[in-house]
Each structure stands twice: as structure tokens, then as C-alpha cells.
């Protein structure tokens, strides 16, 4: 049985300086209440792995606004001038990764793979400093897996067993991140009895989830 917590309690375990994966795509499918709580508890020096930093005041953008982030590993920051400003001022490390590669790196971390072998980024600045490998006459990048201490994710519903169900484009990186972090905190709209989410509708098995916060 999974533990249902308050946001304050669940986010309380995140330490300053932690590596945190945060689900969402331009704020859609992000754990908004957990992000607000990170800000309220003033967690500092975070390394955030996410698809993007959304916009000021939205999703991961709120952590940027509050200058709680030391480093981001994301696929783009083009929609958040605040991220760019902090980067150019030298206050924020930005590690840009092609979006599909980012998804595979998170998946590789959670699925126990040693690396991602991809042609995306070969011959571009995304290849700078990375190992390449020749296979059957083609060149591929070796991209290393990503893992995190915490994953803060969003789902539509949980059941008492912690199983998670997502909806439409709010799914995005959430199920991948649930596999790749030591501690998984999921924000949901409701928690239903076990058996009320059909096994085929579960995208994240409950055994991966450490605590549930209801954002209702």
C-alpha cells in the first residue's frame, strides 16, 4: 500500500542540492503542487532534469524564477528568457540534450541499460565531448543514462497500491522518470481503491511509487 502524504511532508525529504527529475512538457503534466512546495520550502542548489523550463511562472519555470536551480538538463530553454538570463549570468548550468535522446537517457537509467546508442546529434555540437562508436559503418553517439535521487511526477489517478494512470499529452516524461529515481513522489487528482484502475490502464506500477500527494 502506498503512502498518501501532504505536499509539505512528501517534498520535505528532498534535500538541498538534490538531483530531481520533474515530469511535464511546457508545464503540461508537471506536478504543479509539488513544484510550489519546493519553492515554499526553499530547496536550493537543485539539479533539475526535465524536458524544458516552460515559461516564467509556469511549471519548472517557477523554480527558475525562485533561483533554486544550479543546473538543468533539458532539451530547450527557448521559451523561458529567465533561464537564458541566469545562464548568461553564469548562475545556472544548462545542459542541452536532444529531446528524443533525453527521453532515452532517462529510460536507460530506469531500465538498467549501460548507454543509449543514437545517431541523433552526430556531427553537431550535441556531440561535443561525447564518445562515439562505429557499428556496421555508421557512427553513433554513446549517451550515458540519467538517474536521479527524486522524481516529482504528475498523474491523473492513483490507486491504493500506488498504480498510476496518465491522460493524453500529460503523460510525456512522467512514466519514464518514475523508473529512474530512488524516490518517486507522484501528484494525482484522486486516489481510488485497488482494482479500480484496470491492469492494462496502469502505466506506472505502484511498486515504483514512494508517496502520493493529492492535488484536488
Amino acid at each position, binding site marked *: 500500500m502506498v503512502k498518501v502524504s501532504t505536499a509539505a511532508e512528501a517534498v520535505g525529504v528532498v534535500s538541498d542540492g538534490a538531483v530531481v527529475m520533474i515530469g511535464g512538457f511546457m508545464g503540461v503534466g508537471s506536478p504543479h503542487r509539488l513544484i510550489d512546495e519546493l519553492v515554499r520550502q526553499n530547496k536550493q542548489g537543485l539539479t533539475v532534469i526535465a524536458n524544458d523550463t516552460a515559461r516564467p511562472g509556469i511549471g519548472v519555470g517557477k523554480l527558475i524564477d525562485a533561483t533554486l536551480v544550479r543546473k538543468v538538463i533539458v532539451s530547450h530553454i527557448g521559451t523561458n528568457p529567465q533561464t537564458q538570463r541566469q545562464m548568461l549570468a553564469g548562475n545556472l548550468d544548462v545542459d542541452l540534450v536532444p529531446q*528524443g535522446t533525453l527521453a532515452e537517457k532517462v529510460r536507460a537509467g530506469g531500465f538498467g541499460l549501460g548507454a543509449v546508442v543514437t545517431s541523433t546529434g552526430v556531427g553537431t555540437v550535441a556531440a561535443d565531448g561525447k564518445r562515439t562508436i562505429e557499428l556496421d559503418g555508421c557512427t553513433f553517439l554513446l549517451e550515458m543514462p540519467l538517474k536521479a535521487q527524486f522524481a516529482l511526477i504528475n498523474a491523473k489517478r492513483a490507486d491504493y497500491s500506488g498504480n498510476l494512470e496518465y491522460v493524453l499529452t500529460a503523460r510525456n516524461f512522467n512514466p519514464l522518470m518514475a523508473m529512474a529515481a530512488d524516490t518517486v513522489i507522484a501528484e494525482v487528482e484522486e486516489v481510488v481503491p485497488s482494482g479500480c484502475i484496470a491492469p492494462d490502464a496502469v502505466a506506472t506500477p505502484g511498486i515504483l511509487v514512494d508517496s502520493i500527494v493529492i492535488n484536488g
Partner: protein
Amino acid sequence: MDEKTLIAKRVALELKSGDLVNLGIGLPTMVANFLSPGLEVMFQSENGIIGMQTLPHGQVPFMELSDAGGQPIGAVAGAAAFDSAMSFGLIRGGHLDLTVLGGLQVDELGLLANWMVPGKMVPGMGGAMDLVSGAKRVIVAMTHTAKGAPKIVRHCTLPLTALRRVDLVVTELATIEPTGRGLVLRETAPGVSVEQVLAATEAELIVPASVPTMPIAA
């Protein structure tokens, strides 16, 4: 008609029934407005859906159904939703028939630079590198010049998006096909001469004996 509409209309002619298509943000998105009647294509949004459509007129936005810019959209009957790994698996595994993307530069090798201007803001590549590397067909939809400077150049001076040669470049002046021999001028826009295209292009263009006009009503 304005130049963006012209470009979008010309690109729309490249879509075939049965295609899975991904349209970049901005100009490429306009392509969906000009599909031939009866054409059955599915649009993918890389944040996790096949079967996206614009938000139906007058409907309440549902925030958990969005495009890659985070804006609310609709879904056609027969849509499918999935996570980011699957979405890019479709792109990188060669299941995407066509992507239409904006461009900053295309060079004589047909290589595209479309994600970063050094010294300026650094937006990040998002899904552009995956799309250009993985899609079966890549069409660049862009204006021919930027503030008078040619965007079709000898060598890209901006950071490349991928080492893959794009398949077609459509501008408000011309349709150009990158090939192993170089850039071939396939069409001129209505009312535009070959000379005008050449004058606005830094790259060398191969000009066939006959260069038809884009089949677009003016």
C-alpha cells in the same frame, strides 16, 4: 497572398494520404490549413500524440491535451497518446513520413541549421535534431532571406541540426531540392524569375533547362 501562406500552400502539396506528419512550430504549422480535400493524413505532436488537430472552435481548452508549445489542441477520432520515449521512437525509428521544419540556413550539401544563433539566446534543439535525423522526409519551410541576407548558403555558418541532407526546401521564391550533385532549382514562385532566385541565393544552384512555376494559384 503573403509569403508565409505561399510557402505553406506549396508544402501542403507534398503531403500524401496515409502520411504521418510532424509540423514544427510557426510557419510549418500553417501547412495544416491548406490540405487538399480528401487527403487523409495524421499529425503527430512530439509531446505524445498522433491525431492532433486545432482546438475545435468554441470548445473549452482541456489542458492535458496540448501541442509541443503547451497550447491546447483537439484530437481526431482514432488518435493515440503515448509517452515521450514512444513519441521519439516513432520519429527516430523511421515511422514518421514527413517533418516540416523552419530553417535558419541550408547549405550546398543540403544540411540544415535551425536551432541556434551563437552569441544570441540559446533556445536549445528541442526535438529538431531527432526529427531531422529520423524522419523519412524532411522539408524546410522558410523565407528565402533574412533581413536581405541569403539563408541558402555555401556552407552553414550556424550550428548544424544534423548531418542528414534534407529533402526539399520551400521558400517564397523557389522550391529547391538538395541532391548528391548539389541544390537543384525545381520551381520558381508565381511571378518570380530564375534570375531573382539566383540573386537572393548565396549557394550555387543547379538550374535545369526548364524550371516550372509552383502549381499555386496566385
